């Protein structure tokens, strides 16, 4: 074969392994830092989670950014959680690129379909 497969399944496995590992380490570190700040500032508080307390302001992007700037523990934890949720999604992005490099167009399409489902759900989640 002239056009020798420069990018193989084993390369893909190595790349994806790293994406997942780094994603988890970074996001959990952020969660940890946020947690330390939260406990330092609110350790004595008595929270009540027995009923749903409504949508907090850091669900919106500007609320989240504001919270992080003001070093609010829960906002920083939230940012870490968002990074964590993004990790498997990023894994699909990397898989898609790998399938393109392998010239496997069937699986490029399947990966894009999975991505599409998640993107649509993250946009339409506000309803309800």
């Amino acid at each position: 074969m002239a056009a020798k497969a420069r990018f193989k399944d084993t390369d893909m496995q190595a790349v994806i392994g790293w994406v997942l590992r780094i994603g988890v380490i970074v996001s959990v570190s952020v969660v940890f830092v946020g947690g330390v700040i939260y406990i330092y500032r609110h350790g004595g508080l008595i929270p009540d989670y027995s009923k749903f307390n409504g949508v907090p302001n850091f669900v919106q992007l500007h609320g989240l950014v504001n919270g992080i700037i003001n070093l609010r523990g829960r906002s920083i934890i939230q940012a870490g959680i968002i990074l964590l949720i993004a990790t498997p999604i990023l894994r699909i992005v990397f898989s898609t690129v790998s399938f393109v490099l392998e010239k496997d167009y069937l699986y490029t399409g399947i990966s894009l379909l999975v991505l599409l489902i998640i993107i649509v759900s993250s946009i339409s989640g506000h309803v309800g």
Partner: protein
Amino acid sequence: MPVLEFTLIILVGSCFAGLLGSLTGLGGGFIIIPLLTVFLHVDIHYAIGASLVSIIATSSGSAAAYVKEGITNMRLGMFLEVATTLGAVTGAMVAVYFPTNLLAILLGVILITSALLTLRKKAVQIAHQKNTLAEKLKLNGSYPGENGTVEYSVSRIGGGFIMMLFAGLLSGLLGIGSGALKVLAMDNIMRIPFKVSTTTSNFMIGVTGAASAVVYLQRGYIEPSISMPVVIGVLIGAMVGSKILVKTKSSGWLRWVFVIVVIGLASQLIYNGLIGKI
């Protein structure tokens, strides 16, 4: 209960959940949700949200290791993720319309079923019959076995796909990884070797969880102060568990411990759901 105490209790419970979850391959969600709802009186939606986050963490963390060993069938995983994410998104969307006590009862029933499923005998089965759809979808694979590379083929793809839709639905509705159901679909329906089905299921759980989590996140069901100790605890427990797992072959008595713990917790969930306390 003050935040500090509350956080520490969840942290310790989550470590325990992560340890058992990784040793049995079922994930930590099984113990986390009953722990939060029954003992700490947390709203079940918050518990489900926290469980989802921990599932994504453990799945991604262990998948990183498995993927490198070359056991995970990534094409199969990607193909079935179409089904699990579709199911998960649907489940997460309808979860808001479910009364909390109904969620608790349903979760209890699923937990008991899944725990019992782990007690099944796992015979090493390798299918070799040709399946044209599996060939077209490039789903057949191989993995490094003890005596060299083991080739296997995949059967009954349609049935497996439908089962994965259902597994995804439950995952989005109840915040569990549905690992037991995924493995069941791959083992019993698609005839995939156990080693491949468990690692591939684990690989898929992160993406399935993420598909539900994006919905829960926007609903405000993922409470940072609860998710924080859960995710850190489960991850620590799972890491310790995977270290133990490398050294020991099978953990027969541990499965029994797990099944008994889960049945105990699940009964509490069902009871509290029935009397309307959740």
